[in-house]
């Protein structure tokens, strides 16, 4: 299973991880052989990379923190909420609570797992997928902070709906590439718009609603709408302000503009204490895999390997599958090295597809 940018994907390659398409439906399931038609379709909906099976490496079984089924369920619920709000300014809270409950339950069970898959979203699904990813990352951070189940549920609900106010803005505004100061002001209204919807909604805790209101506040007081600083900002909102930006950075959107986790960490840390609460940032940074599953790396011993599993305790020490020796010869079969057990090995370079 390797991450291959769409422009390098060739007919005949086999999908290793399902592609979620329009409306949260599985577009291509695992094991499907790609043909020209699929490639064209994927380009149209803005998918930029795929997890592809590689016969020189063998199959990679990786347990994601959340099952595909639950992920889809939450994506669907989020889409329904957004559609309903657009039409009726109201939504079904029962569906949200059930989805959030399922998500948190699964995350609590898989607490030894770590988020280690590169997310390949289609441009059309960006909003929903982003909401779900932000929620997963936020709950994981909450778990690391020692939250109990009830708090995790409130946090998850707030994270999932944090951008709900966006729906209330004129759609043409969101499609614009450059905004006038006036339009910008309008966009900056979305936290308050979202808060107004959630505040009035029975069954949504005020703590969750505050995430929508405060997720653009910054730790040093330079954010909006109220310019709150430090602990004036709710802890939930301080978490979501980190996880939402992180997900936007690593998500591979149009043009494959995503960065790798270690690069995202660099960028986030540059704003530690400015935009972000340093303590929360620290907890978050330690809960994510630095080398995601599916990327190809060069080891200090000169061997080429694929990252096949992540290690929660040591985020920079994954299991790697050595498939090419130092002399450039493919190994048949490959073998794995658990870097957590073998400290003398380390990753010296992340290889791009062109290097292979």
């Amino acid at each position: 299973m390797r991450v291959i940018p769409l422009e390098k994907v060739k007919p005949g390659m086999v999908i290793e991880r399902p592609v979620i398409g329009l409306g949260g439906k599985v577009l291509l399931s695992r094991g499907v052989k790609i043909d020209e038609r699929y490639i064209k379709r994927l380009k149209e909906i803005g998918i930029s990379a795929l997890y592809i099976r590689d016969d020189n490496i063998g199959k990679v079984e990786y347990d994601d923190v959340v099952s595909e089924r639950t992920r889809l369920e939450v994506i669907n619920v989020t889409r329904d909420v957004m559609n309903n709000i657009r039409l009726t300014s109201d939504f079904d809270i029962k569906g949200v609570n059930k989805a959030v409950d399922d998500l948190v339950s699964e995350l609590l069970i898989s607490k030894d797992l770590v988020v280690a898959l590169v997310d390949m979203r289609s441009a059309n699904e960006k909003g929903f997928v982003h909401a779900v990813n932000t929620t997963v990352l936020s709950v994981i951070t909450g778990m690391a902070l020692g939250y109990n189940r009830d708090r995790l549920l409130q946090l998850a609900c707030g994270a999932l709906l944090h951008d709900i106010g966006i729906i209330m803005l004129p759609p043409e505004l969101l499609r614009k590439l450059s905004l006038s100061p006036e339009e910008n002001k309008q966009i900056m209204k979305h936290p308050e718009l979202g808060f107004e919807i959630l505040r009035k909604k029975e069954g949504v805790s005020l703590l969750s609603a505050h995430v929508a209101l405060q997720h653009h506040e910054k730790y040093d007081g330079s954010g909006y709408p109220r310019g709150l600083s430090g602990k004036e900002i709710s802890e939930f909102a301080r978490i979501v302000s980190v996880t939402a930006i992180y997900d936007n950075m690593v998500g591979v959107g149009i043009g494959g503009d995503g960065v790798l986790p270690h690069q995202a960490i660099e960028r986030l840390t540059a704003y530690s204490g400015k935009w972000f609460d340093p303590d929360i940032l620290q907890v978050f940074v330690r809960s994510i895999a630095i080398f995601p599953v599916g990327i190809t790396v060069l080891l200090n011993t000169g061997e080429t390997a694929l990252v096949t599993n992540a290690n929660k305790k040591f985020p920079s020490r994954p299991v790697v599958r050595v498939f090419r020796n130092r002399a450039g010869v493919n190994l048949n079969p490959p073998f794995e090295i658990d870097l957590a057990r073998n400290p003398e090995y380390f990753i010296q370079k992340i290889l791009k597809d062109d290097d292979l």
Partner: protein
Amino acid sequence: MVYRLLLEDNSETTYAVICKEVCREFNSCCCSIWLKEINGQQRLAYFEEKGSFDDLTISNLDFEVSKSVMENNSLLTVENLHTDRRFSGVKTPPLGAIGVPIVARNSVIGCIILYHKGRDNGVLTDGVKRIAENLAMGLDQVKYNFTTARQEKLHKELEIARSIQQSLLPKHMPRVQGIRLGARTIPAYEIGGDYYDLIITDDHITGNNNLGIAVGDVMGKGIPAALLMAVARTVIRLVAKRSLPPNEVLSEINRSLFPDLSSQGMFLTMFYALYNPPQKALLYSTAGHNPPLILEGSSGKIGLLRCRGIFIGGRPELSYTLHSRKLKQGDIVLFYTDGLTEARNPTGERFDIRRVAEVLKEYRHCDVPALIDCLSLRLMQFMGETEQSDDITFVILKIED
């Protein structure tokens, strides 16, 4: 049979054939041959009956088994891997294993591993041992043909010296209350004189154990530098154990080493620090060594532990200035040798202390192991294809939250 095959064609293909033949002759299911290298090991040949890419259980386990055989330099016989404690934590099949180190000129150069289904009444073990002996000569040759031309150039003795030198570095990080420690050495192709040590000192006055951190660099390269490093290590350990203040430690080391150093016209730079856990205090002195970087966890500010002192071997009697610094939660101290800052990229630019500081700052929220891996990654990506001309060593101390 093995001998004849190797005489005809000493190549990887032949070793693959040997693995297969060994399996057939001993009615076993898997066989592998490994080469030991300065850093790590390389699989030379592998054969697994009914092996497939869909089940890498034996292939994965084989790495751990061969590593343990070469590290311990002793025969390994396991009746059933599945129930053997040594390999708990790795997925194991219910097979027996025999691992024999391959030795040439008194050092381990590789190993052969055989996996079998039945019980061994000694016949298998004897058979594998015999093959290991026959493989020795051929493998010794392969080791120097196997990879790059650069390695062919390396003298065999130099490589032995290198492995002894690596074995002198701490194998485990000592556990010290309230801090996390980590270190990495990235050896250059040519043997150098980098050195670091972490020493738990006996403090009889307070009854506390302090941590001594020594980072040094013998000026010069090759065997003389490596030998001197080995001598210095012993002296430093003896002196440091006594929990003296760092300035006295350096004076004492200079006094002990000066005669040997001056007669050879050599010298060594060294930074020595003593960390006191209850006080979270760092006492330190330098003998002409690069000043460590310090990052304040609270503010993210970066500075140097500036101090001055003459390198060891400069004069028979030297005194050093003692400095101290209180550390706070989240503070990170990076000790290093100049290999880190002098590393160059293909256009000749140095990695430089400023880049090191930048990386340290960007990863300050990570745990120490991740910080070390990220610094290594950034450094190696910066260097690209440039050949590393000097050893690179760094030690990181972080005050826990």
